[in-house]
């Protein structure tokens, strides 16, 4: 056999691994719930509302207003992912960063495989889009905490900025809690920088978070940030979580 054939043989019979019988009843139950959510989303999110959602996302990121809380827009309809067959379910707002690269804007949004189990399935996605329609979303980074506890108070899914295929990505993540400011320290200059924040909601009223990201400049190396900290409206430091 050639090396490639040996590799194929090994991959089809990896020693020490035996596939387990999967719980197809659970699979179909969870898949059915996802399908119903998508139908609901398709029924409530027209193309117009999707466009409005993206505009609304941009408004949410504008933190030049009062500092005593994030300006929260009306709850947006969840967006369907039916068009992009490979994408999991997008849930909640799609946040525009206002930063473009190669004609596409960086966006942040939440995906989940099970809207009823955000604690164990919520992922935060950094993507790019040219048109703002969901079938045009190009995924760059999918970030989530391992295991459950993804809706516990504190920071989650934090990804440092980096150069990815020649593109500068922001430092981003989400915070569960009533933060009025999220800051970090530039490890080089020592300067404290403040994150942009956007409110995010799931289906349930209790399912709230803030998607945040820090300023970054395309074409320049990402800034090395440390000491990520959240504060309430009184300036008191909030739990960072695990």
């Amino acid at each position, binding site marked *: 056999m050639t090396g490639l054939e040996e590799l194929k043989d090994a991959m*089809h019979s990896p020693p020490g*691994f035996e596939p387990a019988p999967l719980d197809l009843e659970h699979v179909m139950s969870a898949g059915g719930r*996802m*399908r119903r959510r998508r139908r609901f989303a398709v029924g409530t999110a027209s193309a117009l509302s999707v466009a409005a959602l993206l505009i609304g996302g941009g408004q949410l990121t504008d933190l030049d207003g009062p500092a005593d809380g994030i300006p929260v827009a009306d709850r947006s309809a969840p967006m369907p992912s039916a068009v992009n067959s490979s994408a999991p379910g997008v849930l909640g707002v799609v946040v525009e960063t206002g930063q473009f690269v190669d004609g596409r804007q960086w966006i942040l949004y939440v995906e989940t*495989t099970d809207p009823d189990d955000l604690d164990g399935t919520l992922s935060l996605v950094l993507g790019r889009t040219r048109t703002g329609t969901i079938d045009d979303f190009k995924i760059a*980074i*999918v*970030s989530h905490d391992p295991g459950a506890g993804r809706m516990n108070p504190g920071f989650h899914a934090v990804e440092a900025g980096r150069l990815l295929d020649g593109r500068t990505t922001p430092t981003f993540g989400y915070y569960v809690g009533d933060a009025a400011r999220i800051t970090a320290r530039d490890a080089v200059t020592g300067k404290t920088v403040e994150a942009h924040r956007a409110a995010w909601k799931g289906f349930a009223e209790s399912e709230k978070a803030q998607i945040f990201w820090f300023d970054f400049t395309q074409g320049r190396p990402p800034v090395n940030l440390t000491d990520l900290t959240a504060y309430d409206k009184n300036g008191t430091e909030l739990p960072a979580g695990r």
Partner: protein
Amino acid sequence: MARGDEDFVAFATASSARLQRAAYLLTGDPHQAEEAAQTALVRVYAAWGRVRHKDPYAYARTVLANLVTDQWRRPMREYAIETMPEQPAPHDVADAVSKRRWLIDALRTLSPRERTVIVLRHFFDASEADVARELNLSAGTVKSLNSRALAKLRITVGLMPPLRTETEAGVGR
């Protein structure tokens, strides 16, 4: 049970083992593999009406690859090497199992992105064009990743043969 459900059960039953193996190759963790394969099937079922008459297996493969995409960005089980080792001398392999184990270990020395391309190309036999589309990479990038990964694997395979330990070789018996 509806006809579509029966079809899905047949599909899931037939494909779950292969999906789990692929997930194991991608994650290196049996529990994550089981979870990833199950999650992929959840998504396939959610989209069953659209994909059942197309290519549900390709859809499942795409979903699975995307599920573990975040592994590209995480340090877990990543031992990527950027420089290829020197061409090794050939060695005999003691037995097929130890060689397979050795190859799977060698697979883990790849970067997650190289590993994903290898699994899609040579486990699922997906074309370069399909891999590029499914991973949102250019065809050139896929080709490059595949070539580099194969080069690493071939050389790695020859460099470190699965030496028998005393226990495995039954020394003293």
